[in-house]
């Protein structure tokens, strides 16, 4: 973008300088500069996309992180679904207030679930990355409290289904308690005491620390890793199913 404006500005200056002795060369050079600026901008976009993909595939591919092994994540108490014997783990770093996380849950997650999680090939693990607003942390604490009673995914889906604009009040403490009332089989007294005491605040903060140590600031962010914590690969943003399929198939085949 800056290239466009710089190019156009340069043309204006040059044109003004040459305005007295007008010739066709000047007007032709304007077009040449504009085309060059456009091509450079396109090249910039492409190179950024390429470097992003490079980072995505090769930065983490060679490292092994025991903290990301499925057994360790389950031991720590991370919400998860799918077989504990799955070959690959998909770790989802999300914020319950984030609209793009909502897009992933509605558009891509059902396909991953039916294709890989139900088939026992992939285990899906949720990590909290509450960085979008003031109500993000209470939402994460409430969701983690439902995990005590095995109701995390019901509550998680309920929140994304009823998601509103960030910090508009839809995820206020009172509303989070009201949403908990809608989860069938949830012991509300246990939930309220857990939520009010902020029992899982250190846990959510440790999730945040892990996300930052991995360089994640964007939600949703994903790590696709072999279940022993090796050969991890990143995907950033609410990417469509074909992107996940390409990485998961590679992990399953590797």
């Amino acid at each position, binding site marked *: *973008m800056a290239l*466009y*404006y710089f190019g*156009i*500005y340069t*043309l*204006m200056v040059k*044109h*003004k300088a040459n*305005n007295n002795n*007008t*010739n*066709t060369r000047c*007007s032709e050079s*304007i*077009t040449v500069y*504009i*085309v060059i600026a*456009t*091509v450079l*901008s*396109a090249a910039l*976009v*492409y190179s950024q*996309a*390429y470097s*992003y*993909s490079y980072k*995505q*595939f090769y930065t983490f591919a060679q490292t092994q992180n025991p903290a990301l092994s499925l057994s360790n994540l389950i031991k720590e108490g991370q919400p998860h679904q799918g077989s504990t014997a799955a070959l690959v783990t998909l770790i989802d770093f999300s*914020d319950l207030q*984030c*609209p*793009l996380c*909502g*897009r992933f849950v*509605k*558009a891509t997650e059902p396909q991953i679930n039916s294709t890989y999680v139900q088939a026992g090939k992939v285990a899906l693990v949720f990590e909290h990355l509450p*960085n*979008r*607003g*003031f109500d993000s942390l209470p939402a994460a604490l409430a969701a983690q409290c439902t995990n005590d009673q095995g109701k995390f995914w019901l509550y998680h889906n309920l929140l994304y289904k009823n998601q509103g*604009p*960030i*910090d*508009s009040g839809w995820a206020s403490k009172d509303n989070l308690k009201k949403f908990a009332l809608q989860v069938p089989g949830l012991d509300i007294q246990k939930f309220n005491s857990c939520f009010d005491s902020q029992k899982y605040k250190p846990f959510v903060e440790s999730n945040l620390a892990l996300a930052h140590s991995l360089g994640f*600031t*964007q*939600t949703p962010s994903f790590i696709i890793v072999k279940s022993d914590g090796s050969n991890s690969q990143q995907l*950033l*943003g*609410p*990417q*469509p199913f*074909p*992107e996940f399929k*390409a*990485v998961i198939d*590679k992990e399953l085949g590797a």
Partner: protein
Amino acid sequence: MGEKRKKGDSMNLSNSSRRRQSITSLKTTIPLAFKMVFPNPIYIAIASAVFTTFWIVFNVLDQLLFFSPVFTFYLPDDAIAGFIITNITSALMGILVAMNVYVIRNSGIKLDRSLFSGSILGIASSACASCSSIGFLIISTLGGFGIFATDFLTNYQTPLRVVSIAILLWALYSVHNKITKPCILDSSYPKRNGETQRKRQPQQQQQQQKITSSTSTLKTEKDPTLTRDDII
């Protein structure tokens, strides 16, 4: 009082008739601006290049277009409105850049400022579709105010984009004025023309000498003040 009211009424009438005239004249001047600029394949190429670049940038920022691991474009339900706005913004950007280049090439008029403000607003609001990536940076540097800023940009993304389209439309209106004004004849045209012809006679003589000495180039590209009669 009565006379004043009559005067006021006649003023209102003349204002409303002017407005009507200007609206009806837009129907002819906007297509005229397009006819003047876009028969030239260079401007079509510029508009297409700008449209394509902005379309890619906007859709990458909106997380609809992915280059890797596989090249994918997808359009979830929640992104349809944004995608339509993105297409309109990109198309307007393409047209505006091409028209502005036409203006620069054919006259010494400055580039329209609203092109910058409109495009910057469009880019900023679409960048905030995936605001969380810069959100952390803003939050960590600006604290609570940063959260307010990113919340505002994310929650009001669609209205902000509509505002950017409005600004781009205004830019289109002003740039089309710059293109077509020298060609419009008004009621005082013969008189004005007579005056300008008389004033310009010595200048034209000089120009004639220059033209005969240089290669055959169009008159309109040299002098933006030429009227339609001169062109014809």
